[in-house]
């Protein structure tokens, strides 16, 4: 074994020489997680708005359900989806198991509660007068809602980044419903799990570095937007 330093050096080399297999894996990760976050965000934020601004029976219950779903283990989502999408399951005819679509759905389920809970917190903290003023000025409800969303945009971006951070780094659900198929559903985290199990640490470390770099970038952006949010408030 070459030790941590040697492995890291080889890993950097692998990244810089543009190893095509490695970058395919990175591509799968980004394509799946970006789709998941893009499809989830509008629905989740509208739901967050409804929970924050409309009073209806079951409102609080629904909110606490989403809050507790924040910590649902990724493998449980994976298992549930596996059973649903398996040929023997209710949605077997869709032929979705072991496809990227299945991974997107799994990641949507994982980031949905995060976007709802954080979005709700942001909107509740927003100045209620934005909504009232917009409504008094004759804006239709959907436009008034956009006004509120715009008021808290930085906090919402923070929510989206947090959701993205969770799904790009999760391994359990992707492994179960994606199947870790080379060139197709193998993403950064499942590849790391596989390479480690094969004792091929170099590629694992290289992919880990990509993920680490992304985490730094996300955190940097988070800090940036949180700072912006403070200025507004």
């Amino acid at each position, binding site marked *: *074994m070459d030790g941590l330093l040697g492995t890291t050096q080889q890993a950097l080399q692998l990244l810089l020489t543009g190893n095509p297999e490695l970058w395919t894996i990175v591509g799968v990760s980004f394509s799946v997680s970006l789709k998941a976050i893009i499809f989830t965000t509008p629905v989740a934020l509208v739901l967050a708005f409804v929970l924050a601004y409309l009073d209806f029976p079951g409102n609080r219950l629904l909110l606490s359900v989403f809050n507790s779903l924040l910590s649902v283990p990724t493998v449980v989502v994976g298992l549930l989806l596996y059973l649903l999408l*398996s*040929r023997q399951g209710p949605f077997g005819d869709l032929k979705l198991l*072991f496809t990227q679509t299945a991974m997107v759905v799994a990641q949507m389920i994982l980031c949905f509660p995060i976007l709802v809970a954080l979005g709700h917190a942001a909107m509740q903290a927003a100045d209620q007068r934005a909504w009232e003023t917009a409504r008094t000025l004759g804006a239709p409800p959907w436009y008034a809602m956009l006004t509120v969303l715009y008021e808290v945009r930085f906090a919402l971006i923070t929510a989206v980044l947090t959701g993205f951070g969770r799904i790009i780094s999760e391994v359990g659900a992707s492994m179960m419903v994606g199947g870790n198929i080379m060139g197709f559903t193998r993403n950064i985290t499942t590849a790391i799990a596989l390479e480690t199990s*094969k004792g091929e640490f170099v590629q694992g470390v290289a992919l880990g570095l990509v993920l680490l770099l992304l985490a730094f970038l996300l955190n940097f952006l988070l800090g940036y937007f949180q700072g912006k949010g403070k200025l507004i408030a």
Partner: protein
Amino acid sequence: MWLFTSFVQAAPLRLATTTSTDNSGLMRELLPYFEAKTGYKVHVIAVGTGQALRLGRDGNVDVVLVHAPKAELQFVEAGYGINRRQVMSNDFVFVGPKHDPAGLRRLRDSVQALQRIAATQSLFISRGDDSGTHKKERSLWEKLSQKSDPAWYREAGQGMGRTLQIAGELDAYTLTDRGTWLVFRKRLPLELLVEGDPRLHNPYGIIAVNPKRHPHVNHQGALALIDWITSDEGKHLIREFKLEGRPLFVPIETTD
């Protein structure tokens, strides 16, 4: 109808196989030839034999390539699969720490090897994942009167590579297929100790998922792969496949 068939042609062929064939690089070597010849795109899902058969039984894959003859026959008898063919074989070996506390070196009898491990209470790591290797190991234990004891018998519940790594870290014995052992040998403080027992023979079979049970499966693709992998070209490629300069699998000559 023409549209429909062309759609079926474009669908990928899903092969559930074991980590031993995939991690050794055999599939990566073989399948491009098959894909170039037939135009099928093969999606390989590498899991343990137990899970591979389960995937076939549920119709989540089109064809399985596994190594557990008994379970394969049950799979066919239960009507989950058809057209089973023997493909190739390699063998299992016992590996363990260099100082060999149970004294297995140069033993040939695999059951005697387990007996010594049990008698000296030397640490043994089992796959514990219902894989072909795990099934083989359990069938060997069944021949012993002595029961394994959690004090020195540990189940990893993981793939062969991981299990070998754990055995290496813990100075323990384990049963492994030769292919994975050859891949990992250099990185492990372990040594090959027992080989050559006929009971350690490890044949691989390929089975098409039964299209009567699962009409949606890519049965044509499954049959094409079965025909190809047992053809002269397939056998030749299997025989020529080498790992660290050594051949790994021997194709099985079938009479039919």
